[in-house]
């Protein structure tokens, strides 16, 4: 069965309902599809990403988000992750003192269901804490393979999660995490920003590789540049809290040539709505 993420008439407010940022988003992403989402600063792209992943500051006031027909709105972010959603953050968060390896082993063990079993000892009593994680050797092998594949230096396994990583390193590590967690649908929020040309290629290769293995992608970007490497099936223009235009690659070219001016002319300046 192909997975699909269906976003229906999604309205989202922030700041305890003070401000409506998403004003009726409709979008369907299936496995193996790449959707590019482009739109001006502040139009609500990250808000959409956060809402899909379940950030507690973003409240869905109307509409629904369905993964394979099931609403995710009542699910905690970790449950959504386990169902196969992944968000590559625009600004990945540092967690000092927590090594990448330790973090990823815990994450993978949760997403792949190892932690569904409580640790148990041989004689049936509660077992050693952490003994229900993915076996260390299997995990290490897989991590090191993936690090090589996605051109992340092996030293990063010991480094603290995102701490002191350069902008580009953070983005690569988001892709590495995505490769380890093997989601069905991934939202990549400006994963291409701040990358040098080599890193852009690594990230694009990664996206292409994963897209061919049953991953559906929503690629939020400001730049035509990444679309030279990653060929989207659909391009959407996001403006003032909704998708205002959808089409193929030509939409991106048009935007690149003319900027958001024509969109502005057609849809007007965004008003600051106070709900």
């Amino acid at each position: 069965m192909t997975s699909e993420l269906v976003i229906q008439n999604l309205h989202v407010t922030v700041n305890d309902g003070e401000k409506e940022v998403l004003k009726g988003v409709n979008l369907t992403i299936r496995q193996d599809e790449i959707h590019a989402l482009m739109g001006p600063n502040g139009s609500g792209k990250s808000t959409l990403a956060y809402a899909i992943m379940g950030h507690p500051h973003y409240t869905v006031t109307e509409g629904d988000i369905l993964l394979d027909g099931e609403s995710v709105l009542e699910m905690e972010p970790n449950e959504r992750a386990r169902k196969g959603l992944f968000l590559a953050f625009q600004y990945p968060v540092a967690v000092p003192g927590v090594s990448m390896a330790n973090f990823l082993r815990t994450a993978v063990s949760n997403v792949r269901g190892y932690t569904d079993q409580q640790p148990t000892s041989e004689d049936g009593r509660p077992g050693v804490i952490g003994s229900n994680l993915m076996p260390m050797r299997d995990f290490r092998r897989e991590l090191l393979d993936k690090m090589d594949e996605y051109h992340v230096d092996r030293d990063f396994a010991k480094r603290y999660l995102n701490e002191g990583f350069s902008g580009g390193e953070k983005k690569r590590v988001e892709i590495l995490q995505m490769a380890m967690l093997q989601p069905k649908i991934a939202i990549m929020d400006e994963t291409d920003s701040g990358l040098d040309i080599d890193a852009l290629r690594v990230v694009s290769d990664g996206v292409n590789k994963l897209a061919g293995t049953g991953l559906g992608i929503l690629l939020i970007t400001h730049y035509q540049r990444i679309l030279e490497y990653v060929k989207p099936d659909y391009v959407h223009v996001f403006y003032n809290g909704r998708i205002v235009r959808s089409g193929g690659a030509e939409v991106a070219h048009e935007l690149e040539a003319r900027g958001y001016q024509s969109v502005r002319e057609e849809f007007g300046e965004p008003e600051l709505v106070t709900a």
Partner: protein
Amino acid sequence: MATTSDREALAGVKDEYRYGFSMPEEYVFKSRKGLDHEIVDQISDLKNEPDWMREFRHRSLDIFLSKPMPTWGADLSEIQFDDIYYYLKPTEKAGTTWDDMPDSMRNTFERLGIPEAERNFLAGVGAQYESEVVYHSLQEQWTKLGVIFLDTDSGLREHEDIFREYFGTIIPPSDNKFAALNSAVWSGGSFVYVPAGVTVNIPLQAYFRINAQNMGQFERTLIIVEEGANVHYVEGCTAPIYASDSLHSAVVEIIVKKNGRCRYSTIQNWSSNVYNLVTKRATAAEGATMEWVDANLGSKVTMKYPAVYMMGPRAHGEILSIAFAGEGQTLDAGGKVVHGAPDTSSKIISKSISKNGGRASYRGLLKVAKGATGSKSTVVCDALLLDDRSRSDTYPYIEIDEQDVQVGHEASVSKVNEEQIFYLMSRGLDEEAAATMIVSGFIEPMVKELPMEYAVEMNRLIQLQMEGSIG
């Protein structure tokens, strides 16, 4: 995902953990409750001690009785000194086996992954073949090097000369009320002597003293590190320590001579009825290094400020302390560094975590004496609060009588960051696992200073402590 019934089952288990465990006890001798000169005489008689020690105990008792209760720090007014047994002599023969152990305790050991030798020791299961063999072979190695590692009572019996030269010199009975109490009724603890130039490359672990008495209420530890010698002593472990008596008051004295080096690591996890009032102090001579790594969990009240007195030029002192205060607990911890000679350096790093209304405070003293020119000190204390009900305070006392010094002090209080929680949850961790991971990361700078196996256990212990913290 844990099913609801899993969670309930675990929640039940956890409640039992909180009270630690108690073993059926057999005593050869148990003093009556309360404390007076007669009890002190009984203790001295039973131990067959030299007169000087008996006199020392009596003198200490007078000091204890005459000193008022400290009025600063945590509230100690509920301690009932008359309601405590000051001396218990455990049976020689081991009366229990692993199978007699209460389930909750076995479960905790299991979950923390405590090695069997250590479990047996903790359970008072007594002479276990394996650990005896380990202990004896280590003992042989040490003896060849001239290293002495005994329980303190045997130390006094077998090495009275060295013992007498140093005992009570770093922390005299008059130091504080609880040091006086310990001096009057002390029993157990470790006696360590490392001769000049000897490096002991395996940490000396208290639990290897398997023949000795279990961790006592009034332990007394004395460590002497001769010139150029090097030792790491490890006290305690991650398992919860059940104490039938609610007062634990230990004294640890350490002498590090010229160019010597000593590290003393502690992990203690007391049951929540215990007042844990400990005096720990070391002197570091010229070029010597003294490091305290001190992790404190549990207890009702803990007051503990390991100290380093840097008495010779270029001595270095370091104190890393972790305190984790849960519901109804006050952990008042920190450190003292005294710069008494030129070009000495020190570092205090304190990390405290408070949850469910717990209160963890940092209390520290930095003193630079006149003449300690070129001294440097950094103090960093970070507090992490897991909820709005919990509390953290910082009391840094600084006394500097010299101009030419460099002193840095940083303090921070933070709450568990929501964006970190969300990030981790988006990777599949539930809220509790996410918070636990953040707490582990917060204390990582200290945990990585512990010997590997303790570091691993320490992280498990943090997970155990964090259970049921959220929601």
